[in-house]
C-alpha cells in the first residue's frame, strides 16, 4: 500500500482513540461505580496542561484459554504536566487494565518502579506526581515472560535516587498492594482517600498464611495506614487528595538544587499574637491546642499538617513565614504529655530529613517531658528511635529555631536543637528544663534520704522548692544557657527575622547531595 498522509494520520487518530478507551466501557464503568476517577480523569484534574508520552503502547487482551482476542492500551498513563504553573512528571496505573499490574509486557516500563516517568523526573529534575492504584505483581506477567522472575533483579535505584533529587508526591485511591504499595511509600508526601486500602498482601493471602479473616479495610484501610505512618494523610475524596498534593508541592522547590519558591505574604511579620496568652494556660498541667498555637504564629492559613494520625506526640507540617516555606515540628502535650515515643521519633526523622533535603528551615515548638517511658515504649525500642531523632536534627543542613514553650527534659531535648550549629533557642517565660522534671528527679536523687527523714513530706517539699528555684528560666537566660527570652506575642517577628537572615546561607548550601539517601521511606 502506498503511503499517503491522509491514511497515516487517520491511523494515528484511530490508535489515539483506542488509548482513550482505557480498558473499555464495562471496566471504566466499574471504576466509576466505585466512585473513582479513571487515570486520565485524575491527570486532567491535577494538571493545567498535559503532554502524554507513550500513548500508543498496548497489551494483548487474552481470554482464560490464553487466546489473544484483541489489543488494549498498556496499563499506565504518563507524561509531562503543568501543575499551578510548574512542570512535573506525572503518571499513574490504569486500574481498568489488568488491575494496574506492572507493564512488564513492554520493552520499557512506563511507570511504577523504575519506569519512564521516573527517568523523566530524574533527567529533567522536575517533581514526580504519582497516582498509585494497582494489585502489584501478577502471575500473568510470568506467562508473558515464560519463566518466573527473581524480584531482586528489579532495580530500585531510580526510585531511591528521586528521594534525594526532586519532590515525590503520591496518591492512593482504590487498592495499592505489594509493589504498588511500595511505590506509594517511596515518596515525600502521600495521601489516600478514606475508602482506599494499602497493604503488603491482601486478605486472601493473610487468610492462607495466618488463618486470620479480615476485611480489606480492617487490614489496610485509611485509618490503619495513617495510624501506622505508611501513608501521611487521609483525603475525603480524590478532589481533596489532589488539592493536598498541590498544596504540599507549593511549599517545595522543583528540585534540591533550588530554594523553595517564596510567595508574597499578606500577613505582616509585625503582627503580634496576643491570643497566645489565652491558648497557653497558666496552669502547666493543662495542655493547649498545638495547631492553634502554630497558626497564631505562622502566616495566616498557611499551616498544612502532615501525618496527623500517627506519632501524635509531635505535630509536623509545612507552613509559611513571611512567605518563606518553613517546616514546623511541635510537641503535643495532649498526647503522652508530649513525650517522644518510637513512632513520634520516626515521624520526626522522616519530616526533618525531608525539610533538610529541600532547604526548608525548621521551627520547633518544644514541650517534651522526655523520651516516653514504660513497657510499651521500651518494647517499641524508644531509645534507638529517639537517638535517630537526635541524629536527624544534628545532620539537618537547615537553620533550626526552637521555641521553648514549656518542658524540655532529658535526652529528648537534644532531639530539638543542634548545639554545634547556631542552635537558636528562644524561650517563652513558661519555659522549664533540666535533666529530669523535678517531681521524678527529686525522688530518684534523694528518695532514700527523704524516706529516712523525721518528716519526709516536709523534707520533700524543701528539696523540691530548692530545685524549683534553680529551674527558673531567667537563671538560665542570665547564664546565656538559652539564647533568648521573648514575649510570646512577638515570636512571629523575631523568628521571621532569623529565617530571613538565613536565606544567604541557604543559597550557599545548595550542592550535590552528600548522601545517597536523604529521606528514608
Amino acid at each position, binding site marked *: 500500500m502506498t503511503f499517503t498522509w491522509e491514511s497515516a494520520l487517520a491511523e494515528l487518530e484511530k490508535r489515539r482513540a483506542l488509548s482513550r478507551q482505557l480498558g473499555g466501557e464495562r471496566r471504566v464503568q466499574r471504576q466509576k461505580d466505585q466512585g473513582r476517577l479513571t487515570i486520565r480523569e485524575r491527570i486532567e484534574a491535577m494538571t493545567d496542561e498535559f503532554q502524554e508520552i507513550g500513548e500508543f503502547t498496548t497489551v494483548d487482551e487474552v481470554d482464560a484459554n490464553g487466546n489473544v482476542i484483541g489489543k488494549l492500551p498498556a496499563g499506565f498513563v504518563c507524561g509531562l504536566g503543568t501543575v499551578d504553573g510548574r512542570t512535573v512528571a506525572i503518571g499513574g496505573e490504569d486500574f481498568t487494565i489488568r488491575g494496574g499490574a506492572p507493564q512488564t509486557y513492554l520493552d520499557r516500563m512506563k511507570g511504577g518502579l523504575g519506569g519512564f516517568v521516573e527517568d523523566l523526573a530524574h533527567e529533567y529534575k522536575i517533581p514526580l506526581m504519582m497516582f498509585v492504584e494497582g494489585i502489584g505483581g501478577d502471575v500473568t506477567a510470568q506467562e508473558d515472560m515464560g519463566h518466573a522472575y527473581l524480584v531482586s533483579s528489579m532495580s530500585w535505584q531510580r526510585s531511591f535516587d528521586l528521594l534525594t533529587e526532586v519532590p515525590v508526591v503520591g496518591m492512593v485511591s482504590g487498592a495499592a498492594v505489594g509493589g504498588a504499595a511500595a511505590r506509594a511509600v517511596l515518596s515525600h508526601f502521600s495521601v489516600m482517600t478514606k475508602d482506599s486500602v494499602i497493604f503488603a498482601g491482601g486478605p486472601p493471602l493473610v487468610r492462607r498464611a495466618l488463618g486470620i479473616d479480615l476485611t480489606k479495610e480492617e487490614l489496610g484501610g485509611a485509618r490503619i495506614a495513617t495510624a501506622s505512618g505508611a501513608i501521611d494523610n487521609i483525603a475525603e475524596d480524590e478532589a481533596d487528595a489532589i488539592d493536598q498534593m498541590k498544596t504540599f508541592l507549593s511549599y517545595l522547590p522543583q528540585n534540591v538544587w533550588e530554594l523553595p519558591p517564596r510567595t508574597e505574604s499578606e500577613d505582616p511579620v509585625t503582627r503580634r499574637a496576643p491570643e497566645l496568652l489565652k491558648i497557653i494556660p497558666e496552669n502547666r*498541667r493543662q495542655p493547649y491546642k498545638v495547631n492553634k498555637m502554630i497558626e497564631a504564629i505562622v502566616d495566616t492559613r498557611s499551616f498544612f499538617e502532615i501525618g496527623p494520625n500517627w506519632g501524635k506526640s509531635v505535630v509536623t507540617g509545612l507552613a509559611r513565614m513571611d512567605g518563606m516555606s518553613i517546616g514546623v515540628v511541635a510537641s503535643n502535650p495532649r*498526647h503522652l504529655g508530649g513525650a517522644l515515643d518510637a513512632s513520634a521519633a520516626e515521624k520526626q526523622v522522616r519530616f526533618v530529613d525531608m525539610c533538610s533535603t529541600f532547604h526548608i528551615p525548621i521551627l520547633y515548638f518544644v514541650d517534651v517531658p522526655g523520651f516516653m517511658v514504660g513497657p510499651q515504649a521500651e518494647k517499641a525500642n524508644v531509645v534507638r528511635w529517639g537517638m535517630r531523632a537526635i541524629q536527624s536534627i544534628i545532620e539537618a543542613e537547615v537553620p533550626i529555631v526552637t521555641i521553648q514553650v514549656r518542658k524540655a527534659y532529658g535526652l529528648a531535648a537534644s532531639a530539638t536543637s543542634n548545639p554545634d550549629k547556631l542552635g537558636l533557642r528562644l524561650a517563652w517565660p513558661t519555659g522549664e528544663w533540666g535533666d529530669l522534671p523535678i517531681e521524678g528527679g527529686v525522688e530518684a536523687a534523694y528518695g532514700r534520704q527523704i524516706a529516712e527523714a523525721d518528716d519526709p513530706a516536709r523534707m520533700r517539699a524543701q528539696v523540691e522548692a530548692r530545685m524549683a528555684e534553680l529551674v527558673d528560666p531567667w537563671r538560665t537566660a542570665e547564664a546565656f544557657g538559652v539564647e533568648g527570652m521573648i514575649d510570646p506575642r512577638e515570636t512571629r517577628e523575631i523568628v521571621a527575622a532569623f529565617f530571613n537572615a538565613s536565606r544567604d546561607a541557604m543559597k550557599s548550601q545548595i550542592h550535590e547531595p552528600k548522601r545517597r539517601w536523604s529521606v528514608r521511606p
Partner: protein
Amino acid sequence: MSTIQSDTAGSVWKILVTEGQEVSEGDELLILESMKMEIPFEAEHDGRVEKIHVAENDLVQDGDDLVTVSE
C-alpha cells in the same frame, strides 16, 4: 450525633456532665489524666449528652469512645 474519642491513653479524672444534659459547643465534657497532664475534651457542637461511655478512674486507650452528644 457525634462521639468524642480519646486521642491519647490515660485515665478518666473528672466527668463534668451527666447523661441528658444540654451542652454548647466548646463546653468541657470530661478531663483525662495522662502523663501528669489534665486533658480536657470539649463538645464539638451544641446538643444533649446522649451517652457517657466511661466512668471516673477508667483507663482509656487512644481511639476509645468517651462521650456521645446528639445534635
